[in-house]
């Protein structure tokens, strides 16, 4: 089903989406918020620019955006996929706990903060270009990858991994971010040895028609927390 989002308000648009059966294409999307929040079992293609909180609490639906997305995309997402052919705004995948978000372009500040994993539920965010400051703050689980595909500079902004106590962050390129907190260990990835991340990287490359071999030839660093209890020593019972 096709929905022309021109001149309709977010509430009406979201009702149309919820009511419609089968796959949906939204044309002329122009900043409507909360699209597909909490949705499962649907495939949605969006032409244009969806507003904030696209796919919040997403529960299995698949969203493809031919354009940019704004802030809080995939907030507290549980399952499903969000594929963004353009770039993403701030707080991408906040507290996400499952599913995948693939962004071809850049991502803003606070990407993937508070992500967590549990048993088989493991969220994944892959960003094609760079990510802003505070990447993976308080990361408790899941996988964050920033590829810096066309840039030559630093792929992340300041303070990645502050308060990180689980999960992993993979950065492509040979420059190590400066402002790393002490509870993070950083090490190079041995050639091609991506472990569980390989599947997702391959899928990412397939989605955006990129050359997996070419991309993974470059050096990668992996950031991991030293402890799952970073604040353990901080308190005394009174």
């Amino acid at each position, binding site marked *: 089903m096709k929905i022309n989002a021109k001149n309709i308000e977010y509430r009406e648009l979201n009702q149309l989406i919820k009511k419609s059966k089968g796959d949906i294409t939204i044309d002329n999307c122009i900043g409507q918020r909360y699209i597909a929040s909490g949705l499962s079992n649907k495939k949605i293609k969006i032409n244009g620019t969806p507003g904030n909180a696209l796919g919040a609490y997403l*529960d299995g639906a698949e969203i493809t955006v031919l354009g940019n997305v704004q802030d809080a995309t995939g907030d507290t997402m549980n399952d499903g996929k969000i594929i963004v052919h353009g770039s993403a705004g701030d707080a991408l995948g906040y507290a996400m706990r499952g599913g995948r978000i693939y962004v071809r372009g850049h991502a803003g500040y606070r990407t993937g903060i508070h992500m967590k994993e549990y048993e088989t539920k493991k969220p994944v965010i892959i960003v094609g270009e760079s990510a802003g400051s505070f990447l993976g703050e308080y990361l408790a689980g899941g996988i964050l990858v920033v590829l810096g595909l066309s840039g030559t500079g630093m792929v992340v902004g300041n303070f990645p991994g502050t308060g990180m106590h689980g999960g992993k962050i993979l950065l492509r390129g040979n420059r190590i971010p400066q402002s790393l907190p002490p509870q993070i260990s950083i090490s190079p990835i041995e050639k091609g040895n991506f472990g569980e991340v390989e599947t997702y990287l391959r899928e990412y490359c397939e989605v955006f028609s990129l050359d997996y071999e070419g991309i993974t030839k470059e050096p990668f660093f992996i950031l991991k927390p030293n402890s799952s*209890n970073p604040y353990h020593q901080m308190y005394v019972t*009174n």
Partner: protein
Amino acid sequence: MNYIYPEYEVVRNYARCIVCRACENQCANCVHRYIESENRMESKDDDCVNCHRCVTICPTRALKIIKSDHTFRYNSNWTGKTINEIFKQAESGGVLLSSMGNPENYPVYFDKILINASQVTNPSIDPLREPMETRVFLGSKVHKIKRDSNGKIDTSTAPQLDLSVPIMFSAMSYGSISYNAHESLAKAAEKLGIYYNTGEGGLHEDFYKYSKNTIVQVASGRFGVHKSYLDTAAAIEIKMGQGAKPGIGGHLPGAKIVGAVSRTRMIPEGSDAISPAPHHDIYSIEDLRQLVFSLKEATDYKKPVIVKIAAVHNVTAIASGVARSGADIIAIDGFRGGTGAAPTKIRDNVGIPIELALASVDKRLRDEGIRDRVSLIVGGSIRSSTDIIKAIALGADCVYIGSAALIAMGCHLCRSCQSGKCNWGIATQIPNLVKRLNPSIAYQRLVNLVTAWNHEMREMLGGMGINSIESLKGNRLMLRGVGLTDKELEILGIFHAGE
């Protein structure tokens, strides 16, 4: 060398002690010890938290706990408490961590407010023979009459919570309190026709059956938040702040993330559960509005959204913003509110009393003409039916009780929840301690407490010549202050007794 002399002493009456070793068995802090060679019990006072478990269990009443009269040289500036805190920090380098509400000696305004009764000209009502309405609805009220094209009045309202009494159990997470404690609260809420609140630890799968009486919380860490969690709830509460630790987040140590707690929070066992102070996606009322509406969108506008804030200096401005954010209900938590763990200095020094916060927020919202947009819940700390009557007369729609509910279940306010070794089976995840709290008994005690308070409130309402909670709401003429300054009376919006 340990600088600190025990604060409490265990006194055992050896003439009564029958060496049954029950105390030894019951104290998770391992205070009691059996000396075989002498067939005698002994106690190590250092580890006693004064929780009264052994005292209550002892079959011959051979035990009591007394405050030690051991003392430092008298000094009203450097009190023993302050000196001991410095010793602890000098020893460990740690931030002082405490639990339960602020115990310090600040004024309790509820205790300086008196309730009216009517006589002669406006006779009191006898609640035993006249109907007395304690039912309340929480949610945004209709503020404008709307008509459809045929001129018919639109009677639809925003979603409401329907309570038999204006009391709810406040947010306490599974993890900070035990499975049995949660079950007791859920069952009691169902029986009483009120609500309990999951806190930020997710909802255990066994408790989905109480969904009609469940408020689920969404906090900065978003633990256990997913579609069915939101769908199952009667209302959703966004936690922006907590009275015991305004400006500070939550931190459940990895040691407490075990078994079902880990599953319910959806994080691995042993990993810390960190809810940072701010929501890192909320920096403005507009951002808050976005979270409110993303939750409403995800749940089809069927559930009221509560925003919980701590009572801090500028609480009125914050509440005014929250009322405009699309929230249906604002919960304000006073600086005496309880907690499973908070930095001592913050718990004891940050925030303001709920009575003042409530009075000013209610006034501000009325002045701005937006009081009807939201209901107000207050907590931290409500200790009795009279506190509730006074809170409602100051402008609240409903109260949250946390500590009082725990005390009803058996908590002895030893304030050592942070240790995870609650001898009463409440603030613990240790299976043989959790077992001590029997949900079918604890639930009945909660039901008893709320029922008793309800009776008392009806009596007081009747005494005032009022027959419904609604008519008491914001009815400040029913209150008088004693021993309060002009400024305090002005903020509370009440007259002094005798006026």
